[in-house]
């Protein structure tokens, strides 16, 4: 005979309780996410694909360089020719919303944990947990609270993708040399002035690396989240697997990869500081 700690059932109990008693919160979140993702999707699909491709290529050119713009042109044309344009834009919208929510929550938490040892100590195990827990596990509570569909997909993605945004924001701020912060104090800066004029600008490259990581993780989660019906490219991949359509699986997988490279390169250049560019670096 062995005694088993009822961890799993305790967890279930908590979630059932939340589901019964805090339903209105989840409902509000659901409505908010749903409407924002629909709006964004509609926006991305507002223009015909060729025009959208031109816009994306111009963005790549403006933020990064000509080579990456050329890569974007070729990749998006390829995606279009594979007939996956709409799915790609859906996935794109999903990632943008998930990343945005991750950053809106993650960056302030990162700032907080950079300024308070207590917060740092409190967050660290939670972040470890969030990052190492198998991503599939998030799908269960997400579905319980938000039902099948894109909202659950986004919630699961946010939980999975947020930790690097928090960690790298905190790290970036902590890496600002103490003497520089001291100099700012010596000139009579308020704590907010130190944060916004010194710490955040100096931490920007590291924070942007966190944003980049956040986007990449979102992208990898998108395929997994397709299992709870978030659609997009992940949905196509899933269809390829379940219906044994190797070609479709490969094509949609390739589209995910191309989208990932595009987002990665463009956001990397976003992270390189103005100073480096002025010095002719990068």
């Amino acid at each position, binding site marked *: 005979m062995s005694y088993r700690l009822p961890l799993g059932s305790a967890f279930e109990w908590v979630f059932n309780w939340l589901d019964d008693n805090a339903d209105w919160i989840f409902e509000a979140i659901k409505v908010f996410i749903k409407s924002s993702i629909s709006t964004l999707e509609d926006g991305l699909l507002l223009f015909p694909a060729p025009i959208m491709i031109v816009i994306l290529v111009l963005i790549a050119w403006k933020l990064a360089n000509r080579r990456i713009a050329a890569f974007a042109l070729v990749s998006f044309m390829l995606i279009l020719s594979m007939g996956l344009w709409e799915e790609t834009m859906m996935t794109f919208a999903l990632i943008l919303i998930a990343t945005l929510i991750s950053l809106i929550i993650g960056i302030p938490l990162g700032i907080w944990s950079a300024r308070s040892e207590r917060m740092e100590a409190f967050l660290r195990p939670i972040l470890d947990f969030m990052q190492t827990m198998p991503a599939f596990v998030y799908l269960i509570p997400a579905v319980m609270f938000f039902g099948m569909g894109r909202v659950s997909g986004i919630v699961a993605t946010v939980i999975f993708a947020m930790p690097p945004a928090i960690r790298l924001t905190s790290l970036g701020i902590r890496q600002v040399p103490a*003497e520089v912060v*001291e100099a700012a104090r010596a*000139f*009579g800066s308020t704590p907010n002035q130190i944060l916004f*004029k010194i710490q955040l600008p100096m931490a*920007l490259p590291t924070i942007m690396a966190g944003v980049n990581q956040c986007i990449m993780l979102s992208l990898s989660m998108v395929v997994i989240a397709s299992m709870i019906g978030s659609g997009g490219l992940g949905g196509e991949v899933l269809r390829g697997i379940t219906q044994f359509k190797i070609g479709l699986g490969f094509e949609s997988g390739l589209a995910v990869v191309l989208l990932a490279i595009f987002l990665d390169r463009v956001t990397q250049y976003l992270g390189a500081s103005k100073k480096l560019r002025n010095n002719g670096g990068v």
Partner: protein
Amino acid sequence: MECKIKVSNLYKIFGPTPEKVFALLEQGLSKNDIFAQTKHTIGVEDANFEVKTGQIFVIMGLSGSGKSTLLRCINRLIEPSRGTILIDGEDIVSMSEADLREIRRKKIGMVFQNFALFPHRTVIGNVEYGLEIRGTPPPERRKRALKALELVGLERWADSYPSNLSGGMQQRVGLARALAIDPDILLMDEAFSALDPLIRKEMQDELLNLQNKMHKTIVFITHDLDEALKIGDKIAIMRDGKIVQIGTPEEILTNPANSYVAEFVQDVDRSKVLTAGSIMKKPEALITPKDGPHVALRKMEEMGLSSVFVVGPDRRLQGLVTVDDVVNNLHKDLSDLIRTNVPRAYIDTPVKDLFQVASETKIPIAVVDRDGTLLGIVARVSILAAMAGGK
């Protein structure tokens, strides 16, 4: 001169419960014993000093002597544990955060050892910072920042980034950043220590030049005694958190308070620091033109001198007569025998400038003020004695 900064009974004890340590200090326990018992470190122990308006006050000590801690207490970058710091009569220690910020914004500029420039801002962005955070409108702060950059000769580099500048130039930016807010007080924390020796000397000269124009009150930290002696009007020497001596460079050199200071100053090039005023003596005998040659001769005989200075009314130096001239011309008027081309020096002439003069003449050097009043004489033997470190 009025008192700008007055520090009284200032203590800084590092550790969670400084109150406990005061009792132990009163019992006379040493720093090491207190650390062993309580794990508290004493950064500054009972510091007392005044800095007058327009003065350069140097705090000098080796690393770990508490000098940087003491400096940071002045603008409360480090919170003092006990004591008062008055700036223009206002107590910094008991001031609210908001009032303290105002003082930092308007009265105190600070320059750091490793420059501590903001790497993400241009040179002018750095210099503007102090004005920016106190809400000066952009056109005016740019104008003032450019003026500060002109003072240090870097206006051409305004739009560069600090990383493109050499160390010496970066510290000029640091200095301009502190000057841009037009503070009364400059706190300089080993400001030139990170620079190589030639650049350091250049910066010291430049600081003294600027100080001649600006008359700021400067508290300057250094571990370099030569630097302290060169730029300091007053020097405080620190050891183990305590100020062991405060004085002018000459007082420190000629009258060290204890063996620690004495050992410290023994290798200094005294000729640069000591002045004619500090080694001159009262003339043993003086005569006036009205005295006849016989009086002059008798005075020289009495004192065993081969020459004697002649002064007019108000002790104005007229020249010198030698015993040979007097003996050979006893019937002449004394005023005909005066040699007027005697070597002269001012009270603040450095001793190093006296070497040449002393080597060319056998008679003592006359120390006079700007009106020609005789203040004292420097015998050649006094110069040698001063260089040897004796008194």
